[in-house]
């Protein structure tokens, strides 16, 4: 028997790296029975990885396991599969639904754990042919739903449910497990309406009263304060703070979330361009980009500045450049240099001297199977007829291999791209060097205006600095206006002049980069839908 002092869950010195990239460092976490723990942090802070370790997800084992130990009721446990975790009384509701659309709520709640009755056939052929005991199932489903404290129709088919009810079905499924002691909720309120979210918070409270511990992950900090006993903030794989919820405020939490070494990320030179002319004016832009919907964005970009666009994942910041550059369906008006740019036509944007470095390096940014020469020279060749020799009065436009090699070698040298030569295939380069190829491709277009989307995603610290420096130099030396989209606020603050924060598909605010981090943090969560 565990005595009263032994916490339900204890995680000690958890460490995890993905191929040398440290994502969790010395995480210590304790959780008592019936306690509600709020876990927050920016995207990539390590929350999901920590939960995956706790839940024994395959991905952890496949990438070399983890260090440190997990104690459940004072006993050391090691979950190799989610089944082990389930058996130990840990339940998890993921961000993505795992429900069968054609089944009713009851069937989903008790899937594969249905109470059964024996029948003639199953006597002969074994228990897989037992009949389901629907009366008993209804009873258990009802019990789970009432335990949750929010009523859903147990006979409704999942595919006909509003999205919030699907979420509650998932929770009821976890609650229907008798042994459930710890429930992990990963951003459960992201898809809920305000009313449903309130109901969820109420049901979390009632679970807690029944002795079930809850780990609650959300970006809505208000909810954390409303329901949690304790708040743990993670950043860059560290636990930054672990405090009782009543002793903190939303401001403080958002500061912890984003404010990495605020002092050291000193501003080199913030310039004020408010007097400069508006080079791009975006009005009432909407973009239908899956997962990054832009609802209504109006934004003025001044000539010569570096404008940052930040915000949490899924709030629409990536949709802005993709929509303007015509890669996803968009509407609204975009004026560049006094002329209107037609949307949904990448060619027209490129012709107007805009360039775009996509966040999707491998999907959009590179010709992985072709040489670096092709990757760098291709857009400039197609759009501006550079690197071509013309014969027969322009009838034949022949690839100028020498000019292509020259420009490639120039950029390899300028950007310090590590490769075996200009003829190497793009897929053979590391992430950071691939990113530099993407930049070189855009630089070769010699644009007046450059969109750079997540230029440092998935590359190591050293390469990050080089990429940012290359962008800064490009802006300073060629006077190119740069709009940089990034999930990392500190990165934006280190290079941009102004930063716009996108939240809920709209611009939540634009501030000079010198403003304190927590202000930006507040903007990020201000309109989260």
């Amino acid at each position, binding site marked *: 028997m565990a005595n009263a002092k032994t916490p339900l869950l204890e995680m000690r010195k958890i460490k995890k790296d993905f191929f040398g990239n440290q994502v969790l460092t010395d995480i210590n976490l304790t959780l008592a029975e019936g306690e509600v723990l709020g876990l927050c942090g920016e995207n990539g802070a390590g929350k999901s990885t920590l939960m995956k370790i706790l839940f024994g997800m395959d991905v952890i084992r496949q990438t070399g396991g983890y260090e440190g130990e997990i104690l459940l009721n004072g006993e050391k446990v090691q979950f190799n599969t989610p089944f082990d975790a389930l058996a130990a009384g840990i339940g998890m509701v993921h961000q993505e639904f795992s429900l069968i659309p054609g089944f009713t709520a009851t069937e989903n709640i008790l899937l594969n754990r249905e109470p059964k009755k024996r029948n003639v056939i199953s006597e002969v052929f074994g228990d897989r042919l037992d009949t389901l005991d629907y009366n008993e199932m209804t009873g258990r489903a009802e019990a789970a739903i009432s335990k949750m404290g929010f009523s859903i129709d147990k006979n409704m088919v999942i595919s006909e449910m509003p999205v919030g009810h699907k979420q509650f079905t998932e929770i009821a499924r976890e609650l229907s497990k008798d042994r459930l002691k710890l429930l992990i909720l990963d951003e459960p309120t992201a898809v809920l309406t305000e009313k449903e979210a309130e109901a969820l918070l109420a049901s979390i409270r009632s679970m807690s009263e029944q002795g079930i511990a809850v780990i609650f992950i959300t970006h809505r900090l208000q909810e954390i304060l409303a329901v949690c006993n304790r708040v743990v903030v993670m950043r860059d794989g560290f636990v930054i703070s672990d405090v009782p919820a009543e002793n903190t405020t939303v401001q403080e939490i958002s500061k912890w979330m984003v404010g990495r070494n605020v002092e050291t990320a000193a501003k080199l030179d913030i310039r004020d361009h408010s007097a400069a002319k508006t080079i791009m004016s975006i009005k009432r832009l909407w973009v239908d980009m899956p997962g990054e919907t832009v609802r209504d964005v109006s934004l003025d970009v001044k000539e010569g500045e570096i404008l940052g666009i930040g915000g949490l994942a899924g709030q629409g910041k990536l949709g802005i450049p993709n929509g303007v550059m015509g*890669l996803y369906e968009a509407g609204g008006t975009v004026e560049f240099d006094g002329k209107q740019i037609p949307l949904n036509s990448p060619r027209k944007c490129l012709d107007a001297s805009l360039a775009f470095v996509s966040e999707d390096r491998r999907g959009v940014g590179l010709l992985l199977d072709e040489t670096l020469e092709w990757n760098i020279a*291709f857009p400039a060749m*197609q759009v501006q007829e550079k690197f071509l020799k013309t014969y027969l009065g322009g009838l034949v436009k022949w690839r100028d291999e020498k000019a292509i090699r020259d420009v490639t070698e120039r950029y390899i040298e300028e950007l310090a791209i590590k490769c075996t030569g200009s003829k190497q295939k793009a897929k053979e380069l590391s992430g950071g060097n691939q990113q530099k190829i993407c930049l070189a491709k855009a630089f070769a277009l010699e644009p007046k205006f450059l969109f750079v989307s997540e230029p440092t995603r998935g590359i190591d610290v050293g390469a990050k600095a080089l990429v940012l420096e290359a962008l800064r130099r490009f802006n300073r030396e060629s006077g190119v206006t740069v709009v940089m989209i990034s999930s990392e606020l500190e990165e934006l603050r280190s290079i941009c002049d102004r930063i716009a924060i996108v939240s809920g598909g709209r611009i939540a605010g634009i501030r000079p980069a010198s403003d304190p981090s927590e202000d930006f943090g507040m903007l990020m969560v201000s309109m989260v839908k």
Partner: protein
Amino acid sequence: MNETLDKTNLTLRDRLRGFVDSFGLPRLIIAAFLLMLYIAAPFVGAGFWMQISNTVNRFSWNAIMVLAMVPMIHSGCGLNFGLPLGIISGLLGATLSIELGFTGPTSFLMAILIATPFAVVLGMGYGWLLNKIKGGEMMIATYVGFSSVSFMCMMWLLLPYHSPTMVWGYAGKGLRTTISLEGFYDKVLASFLQINIGGLSIPTGTLLFFALLAFGMWAFLHTKTGTAMTAVGSNPTFAKAAGVNVDRMRMLSVVLSTWLAAIGILVYEQGFGFIQLYMAPFYMALPAVSAILIGGASVNKASIANVIIGTFLFQGIVTMTPTVMNNMIHMDMSEVIRVVASQGMILYALTRKTEATK
């Protein structure tokens, strides 16, 4: 000492493996098999030079239809199983040229000229269709080939042809299944600068004509448009983001492929000496697909070298197996071996089709 020895052994083995990897094991096996057939030929009483001549001849007939695979592979439309569509354009050109009364070399030239608009129009329709079903090109292409052949089976009977050299003698209407080209363009290219030394006979003109088209294709792939086409095949999203009209590039590649197929069948006919109608185009696509795959092309990468090596290997096997095998085992196994080799090759290539890296 031992260690260094091991090391050199290892590098040698690595090098060998690297060679096998780059050249491809199946290609190696087929090349070895073909070589074996050539060596065996004189011993079983088949003239060596005659066999070489046969292979070169068959190569010259077929190479352009294999070349027709290249543009669509480059643009990412996959292997052109819809080759019969282009072949039908060529057949329309051939029959109309004769119907309009052209003879001799002029009839060949006119056949090309007449076939061209058909190839362009049909190719555009075919390309439009393929742009609608991106990802499933090869499946749809196969059915385009099937259905166009079946449709033309009716049309060859119904179209109002009257030339007595082509229509059925007793009915006076409807085209015959096989039409002799004597007096029209039989061997019109092959006899140009033909080399005859002993048993060896080289159809120089046909080879030159192929070389001309192959050079044209090579050159096209080095132009701005050709580069865009390759990029579309390599990563369509990249090409779109670089301002390339992806659908137009794909359409162009399909038209090019269809046109080359039309020219290809005309060249085949002049070497073979007959026009074959009705179900004949049906059997043309698979050998061409098979040849380019044997040549080392993948579903989205192909070079002129792939075309030349592949056509030579495939046609070599096709010509050599009947003679050598029949002489050797005195049993007609040739067709079986041919079918196993060609179909097996297609199957193999499709199962290990290398997609663009994602």
